């Protein structure tokens, strides 16, 4: 009997934990939708000078992707040291590749 009570307690604790997690993920979803609307909005309305639009769009994209990685893909949780290393390794190589190809055109 005592065992049963303990399992129930553990189960409700777990359910609460994943509920809280879901709440955070819903908030990040709302933020991602918001960032998307802002990005499309500034392009559709020509509200901002052309020189500032591109860096602003890139910042919005990077923030949105960070939410995706850290909240939707759980990279903020513990036990994600190796996944982080792999993704940041990938991003490092990606930045080098894009920098190299852009420099070739710029030259």
């Amino acid at each position, binding site marked *: 009997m005592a065992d049963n009570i303990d399992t129930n307690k553990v189960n409700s604790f777990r359910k609460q934990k994943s509920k809280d997690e879901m709440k955070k993920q819903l908030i990040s979803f709302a933020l991602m939708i918001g960032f998307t609307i802002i990005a499309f909005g500034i392009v559709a309305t020509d509200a901002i000078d052309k020189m500032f639009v591109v860096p602003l769009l890139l910042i919005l994209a990077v923030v949105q992707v960070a939410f995706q990685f850290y909240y939707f*893909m759980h990279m903020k949780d513990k036990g994600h040291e190796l996944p982080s290393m792999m993704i940041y390794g990938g991003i490092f190589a990606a930045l080098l590749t894009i920098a190299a190809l*852009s420099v070739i055109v710029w030259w």
Partner: protein
Amino acid sequence: MSHDHSLNPETMPQEPEKATLEGKNKFLGLWFFLGGETVLFASLFGTYLALRNSTAGGPATTDLFGLELVFVMTMLLLTSSLTSVYAMYQMKNNNFKKMQLWLGITALLGMAFLACELYEFYHYIHEYEFTFRSSAFGSAFYTLVGFHGGHVVFGLSWLIVLMVRNAKRGLNLYNAPKYYTFSLYWHFIDVVWVFIFTVVYLMGKVG
């Protein structure tokens, strides 16, 4: 395999996807794969950025792209990312039926996205005669966006096979890692799309 008692415990662990060694390996393997995919897509993005002004007298980015369809596609894919989060939430609650339901919605949203993309390509080819062979810009555009579309096709096939194969098995420690790795892959498709709509469509519209 799924009838093995050790894979069907009476109480599911908190993280069924990482409870077995096989699950842990699949988890790490998929993240390793995503790191490689990042580099792969970066080379396609770099190529696109280098060639996007080489239009050879054909249509340019500012003539081609419309924002409405791309916005709809973005919303479809972003929502499908959230529905697969819901599916993983139901997996943690050990509710197999609801997990399958949310994954089914994910598949439908993915198919809607794909239909929009096919319509978009059809539109470019028939209204603007803008094909893979029109210009260096055309080749770079269809390679980058088409490669992403190919990932969506692969992801949908993966998901449908997974759902059909495990429909009668229910959730256990053998197939939980399979579902979890799929959800990670599906989120990554959305990550790539965020950069596509920013770099290709929005920056293309700005000029």
